């Protein structure tokens, strides 16, 4: 955390002058100088850092220039939106990747499995903002296809089948949020809130889903080759029991490790998704803070995200122990 704060502080010089966003164009140099002095921007970097660090130890990461509120409050207001997005996307990934991955491993030759693998290869290389824009065009705005002759029956049918109505919300979280606690307003409990979640979650999931499908498939195929599975087969266990109880359990071990790391990465990817969908989460907030050179907010964001990484990695280690009892967390003698 200390390293993050130092690095975050060191890059601020490259970000430009926060004053430009705070004053109008016609404000004189003297006024600007006075304000700069007031904010302590004229002090040497070390002095600024020590002042920041002194307060940070007491849990005060400073005030955002733009919001005029403590940075942690600002982040707390934006974090729930991002977490819901990540939770939604994770749900989609889990519900889809496991069955598809397992299926592709069990029947590698089936055309459906090949189709899934083909799509996932393409999917992994499409950038998330492109997916998002395409999704918005198809499901929010709607497209009208007129490629086929409308005077023939089949042409009309094809045109109709390929055209979409649109109507899905394309930005924000909607008006109908449920208050859970503190700053957490949730979109999971109302139809409108869920509708707003669909497109952003799908596009966020689209970058991770192919990765997980391929990972699960590869691990599963390896496990299926292992001796204990062969013994199980020889023993005459039903293939459903072998595949889903014995094989899947061992497949999930590396998947959980990767997944834990990927959740952190996903928080980073939300920056793109949130920008396209105007999702009022920390990613969008961070991007705007950069364009405004809102340095305290940038530093605080980086530290909070660092903390999230640390927490998820710790959680992954704990979960690992539950799934695989041979891993001993306490380090007692074997």
């Amino acid at each position, binding site marked *: 955390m200390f390293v993050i704060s130092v690095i975050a502080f060191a890059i601020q010089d490259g970000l430009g002058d926060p004053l430009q966003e705070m004053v*109008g164009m016609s404000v004189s140099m003297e*006024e600007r100088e006075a304000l700069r002095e007031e904010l302590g921007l004229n002090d040497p970097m070390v002095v600024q850092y020590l002042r920041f660090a002194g307060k940070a130890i007491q849990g005060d990461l400073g005030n955002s220039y733009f919001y005029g509120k403590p940075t942690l409050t600002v982040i707390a207001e934006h974090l729930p939106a991002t977490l819901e997005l990540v939770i939604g996307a994770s749900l989609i990934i889990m519900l889809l990747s496991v069955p598809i991955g397992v299926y592709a491993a069990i029947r590698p030759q089936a055309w459906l499995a090949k189709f899934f693998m083909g799509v996932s290869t393409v999917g992994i290389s499409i950038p998330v903002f492109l997916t998002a824009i395409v999704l918005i065009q198809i499901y929010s705005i709607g497209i009208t296809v007129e490629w086929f002759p409308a005077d023939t029956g089949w042409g009309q049918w094809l045109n109709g089948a390929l055209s979409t109505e649109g109507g899905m919300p394309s930005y924000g979280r909607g008006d109908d949020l449920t208050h859970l606690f503190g700053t957490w307003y949730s979109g999971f409990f109302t139809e409108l809130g869920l509708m707003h979640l669909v497109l952003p979650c799908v596009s966020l999931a689209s970058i991770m889903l192919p990765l997980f499908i391929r990972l699960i498939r590869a691990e599963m195929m390896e496990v299926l080759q292992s001796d204990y599975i062969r013994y199980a087969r020889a023993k005459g266990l039903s293939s459903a029991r072998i595949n889903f109880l014995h094989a899947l359990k061992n497949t999930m071990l590396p998947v959980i490790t990767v997944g834990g790391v990927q959740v952190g990465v996903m928080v980073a990817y939300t920056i793109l998704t949130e920008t396209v969908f105007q999702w009022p989460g920390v990613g969008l907030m961070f991007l705007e803070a950069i364009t405004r050179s809102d340095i305290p907010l940038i530093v605080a964001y980086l530290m909070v995200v660092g903390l999230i990484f640390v927490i998820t990695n710790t959680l992954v280690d704990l979960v690992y122990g539950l799934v695989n009892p041979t891993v001993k967390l306490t380090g007692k003698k074997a």
Partner: protein
Amino acid sequence: MKKLLAAFIGTMALATAPVALSAEATKELKMAYDADPVTLDIHEQLSGGILQLSHMSFDPLVRWTQELDFEPRLAESWTRVDDKTMRFKLREGVKFHSGNELTAKDVKFTYDRLKESQDFKAIFKPFSGINIIDDYTFELVTSEPFPLLLNTATYIFPLDSEFYSGETEDGKMKGAILKHGNSFASDNLSGTGPYRVTSRQQGVRMEFERFANYWDEESPGNVKKIVLTPIKENNTRVSALLSGGVDFIAPVPPTDLDRIKRDKNSDLVTMSGTRIIMFHMNQDRVEAFKNPKVRQAVAYAINQEGIAAKIMKGFATPAAQLSPAGYQGYNESLKPRYDVKKAQELMKEAGYEDGFTITMMAPNNRYVNDDKIAQAAAAMLARINIKVDLKTLPKAQYWPEFDNRSGDMMLIGWHADTEDSANFYEFLTFCTEAGSGAGQYNAGNYCNPEIDALVAKANVETDIEKRTAMLQEVEQRLYDDAAFVPLHWQDLAWASKKNVKIEPILNVMNFPYLGDLIVE
């Protein structure tokens, strides 16, 4: 009988009362701008977003019409007492959102606060005081004769003095203007305007509701509730309109103009704007730019019409001067002078036939297509053998460079806060003078004291005709001298659903008068 009559009158009053309070205000408007107001304190920052908010929740003394005339708002009438004094009559019976009534003391409170505001004090510098005559009459006094008094009065949006006076529970002054950190005024507001702010989550959404006791009962506006969502990403903003998620968006990016025109459910309104985009040629850094012939050659080499047509896709009006049409300084005879042959000849005459190398700097996220404009200009200059070393930067990094004047040619866009030509000259072409703020953005270090003197003279000339002639002469002389390279005035664009009639409420200043908006 008496009781019955009283009851009868009572019901009559009840039945008629809502009619008087614009009974038609029932519609809801969802709109998306690229940003939401940074604060509710309209004196904290002078920016487009804040002025838009000012026109929603406050009313100015006078405001601009679409034709750039003045329209009385809270000031019912005004008369000139002498060269330096203007007497205003305030509208009676105007209520603030808090229920307090507007009087001259609110205007004085606002005036004093403007004089203290870091962003506004420059505009109000010519004023020396305000005299309250009675509750509804006051005089604005300037230290010199001041022709732009009414222009400046468009910035006086009276605040509720009672509401903003005193201390908050934790002992802070309610009226304090705080640039950083939260003040009472940056979270609370009470104005006379058509819309009250009912909820606000900064950067996420803002809700407004029509003020039931709004004074202007002739306003045709019928929108009861406004939801403002900031959508920064251009594509998302346009998608939100096309998908029906919002009813009104601004600004519309030039790349999407056709897409909206084609959409049968949407209307597009464009206007030639008043923000000039231009290049400075720094004479202190480049010896050659001291020679007027070289400057003229550069001016002849740049194809303004080409840039407006190709890069801006017609979304700009090519410029040959600073003042846009409608301003007093606008000189009709000045036309873009693109002529490469002439430019090459001028370079030859000046002895720079073989050209030279310069550096050029431009922002890449401040104005529409700013980096592409700079690239095009660099390519055009290559034809008269000026090799350009171009560097484009994000705005947060660009402005410090601009303040240091660290490029030989630098791009800037300028909008005159006073909607008057003189403001352009004062900031962009005046001889730089530290301390007074003159020529603060003159990154060319161009200096012609004769022109400055002429502008200064125009600034105390209250006869409009004489003043117009002076300012047009200034524009002509700057043109002849090629003091800078004007490019274009950036157009403005708004789009809405067909049933939202935005055209009558829009203006070149880009303050939509949403109070008068009609939704069918």
